[in-house]
């Protein structure tokens, strides 16, 4: 489906998924460099990734259950 028609159908969803790509991929891709600035290195990156992903996964189900609020 063309992006224009998709935008007319659900503009909030189109903006949301685009920014989801920008924010999540951008932040997680550069997380190792961020933790290097703390002099933590690879271990910190893994723990940081795990911390954010843990609640990203655990939070998914209740979040989507309450999405109709």
């Amino acid at each position, binding site marked *: 489906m063309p992006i224009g028609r*998709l935008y007319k159908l659900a503009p909030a*969803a189109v903006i*949301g998924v*685009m*920014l989801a*790509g920008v*924010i999540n991929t*951008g932040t997680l891709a*550069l997380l190792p460099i961020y933790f290097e600035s703390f002099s933590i290195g690879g271990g910190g990156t893994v723990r940081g990734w795990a911390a954010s992903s843990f*609640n990203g996964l655990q939070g998914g189900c209740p979040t989507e259950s309450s999405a109709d609020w």
Partner: protein
Amino acid sequence: MIAVLCAISGMAAMVIAIFGRSLGEVGVMMVLVVWGAGALTFFGLCVAHAIDRTPKGKIPQVMSGLLFIWAGGSIVGPLLSGIAMRGAGATGLFGLSGLLLILLALIMVWRVSARAAPEEHQQEDWSPILPTPLASVELDPRNPDREAET
């Protein structure tokens, strides 16, 4: 709900951006948990929002379009984050994330006021499922548009 998630996640990102060094590793991890709860869950809500407004026969086209847009964002994201980190150092990474999440929360509030959500009976049924390999999934053959044509 998307606006609430983005606002909470955006504030968490701002806390990391501003106080990251003084929070230390453990503090950053704890705030990252809050950031993940918002930033890593709203994609699914956006997809559900689009599907609620989509005729049943058009769902695959809408899904492929949304994935295409998400992929475009995923290409631009690391580039923008790199520019932000080059410009503002470690603050730039979560600073950019926080600004974009707060901007998205404001856009969602604006959209809610511009167009009401579909009524409950217009929304698709859903149930939580675990990630499953495509090979073991049975595709739903129903397509009301195709049935009407034949």
